[in-house]
């Protein structure tokens, strides 16, 4: 099943099944949308790929990906939320002999748990903020040609990583059960290699700090 099918089926099912209730009284909130993952940090060092080709900086490009979250509102002020995001980031590298060029691509899927403090909860908007922690599941980093040189190093295993940060967002109702949702997450996690060859070259894992700021726009279904 494609990743996008899950939120589509969930939303359709909830549209049919959701009991009518005032949004401000709702206990469950399903949010879905598209998130922009921008990164704010990079790895610097000296990774010799092959003769004459050394990478000294690696940074992940921003990317857009789907996000789905479900919140249970325990009290009018506090809710617990589980979120899943997905992104596929292009890793760009630069070296002494070449400027910024493609290095490879890696997929990430952060699974986050958060506590939302609903600062204001009214008919017009519902502003929430709170901490999040989670786990990031990484796919392999698959290097491509670097600076137009084919480098036969194959896929590099990546290590799943802990994530933490803060989350803030707002639901703006436009119908009985529906609201626009805008969400911002400032997270801290890394893409870290789990590769003996990389460790043999560097003496340690290669860790690309991602430290993403994730902005999401989408819809919220409240019941």
């Amino acid at each position: 099943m494609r990743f996008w099918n899950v939120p589509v089926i969930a939303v359709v099912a909830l549209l049919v099944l959701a009991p009518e209730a005032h949004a401000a009284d709702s206990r469950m909130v399903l949010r879905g949308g598209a998130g922009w993952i921008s990164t704010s940090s990079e790895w610097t060092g000296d990774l010799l790929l092959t003769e004459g080709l050394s990478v000294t900086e690696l940074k992940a490009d921003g990317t857009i990906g789907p996000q789905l979250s479900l919140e249970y509102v325990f009290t009018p002020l506090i809710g617990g939320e589980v979120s899943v995001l997905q992104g596929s980031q292009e890793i760009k590298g630069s070296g002494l002999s070449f400027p910024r060029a493609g290095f490879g691509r890696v997929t990430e899927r952060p699974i986050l748990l958060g506590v939302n403090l609903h600062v204001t909860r009214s008919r017009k908007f519902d502003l929430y903020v709170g901490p999040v922690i989670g786990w990031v599941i990484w796919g392999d980093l698959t290097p491509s040609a670097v600076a137009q040189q084919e480098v036969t190093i194959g896929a590099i295993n990546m290590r799943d990583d802990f994530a933490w940060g803060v989350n803030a967002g707002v639901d703006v109702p436009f119908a009985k059960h529906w609201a626009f949702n805008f969400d911002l997450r400032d997270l801290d996690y890394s893409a870290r290699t789990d590769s003996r060859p990389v460790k043999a070259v560097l003496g340690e894992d290669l860790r690309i700090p991602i430290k993403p700021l994730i902005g999401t726009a989408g819809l919220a279904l409240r019941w």
Partner: protein
Amino acid sequence: MHVSDGRGPVSLGRASSFGVLAATSVTDTGGINTTVVVGDLGVSPGRTVIGYPLVRGTIDMGSLKAAVAQEDLAGAFADADGRSAGAVGISGDLGGQTLTPGLYSSPSALSISGTLMLDAQGDPNALFIIQVASTLTTGAGSQVVLSGNADPFNVTWVVLGSADLGAASAFQGSILAGGSITLGTGATIEGRALTLNGAVTLDNNTITAR
């Protein structure tokens, strides 16, 4: 032709582009460009290449390319060394003998003086895997000769100890050694010299890995 347990050729993976791959160092004691390596030359995790071999490929000293090649070499070594079904026991000096395709296993040191014939019996895909539990030594001027459409890249020598090729010897196949590999003056290899843990020493040699 499968050798053995239904397994096919020993896959070298990302080590296959290397004519010479060492763990600690590669030393060429000959003159400038008198050793020719057709293929890549690499060292990992070491970073030392001494001398001036002519390499028709890349020279990878401690690079990621060499490191992943070492990783695949370890897998190939384990595969080749771990095969046992149908193994034919051999020992001592193989000079003057003819081997047909198959898996051969020597529990002790192996040597080649004179000529060893590897006869594929007309099958260009025929596999030869020769396991040596100790060292492999070839004499000066010795030869491994292929016949019957045998392909040197289907010949694998998996040597737990070191491999020493005599001066002016002509060798066929890929050596996967646990220890060091030393090529005497003027020795040639149609294949590869790959070591998991040791050094490779060269002297006016030609190694053709592709």
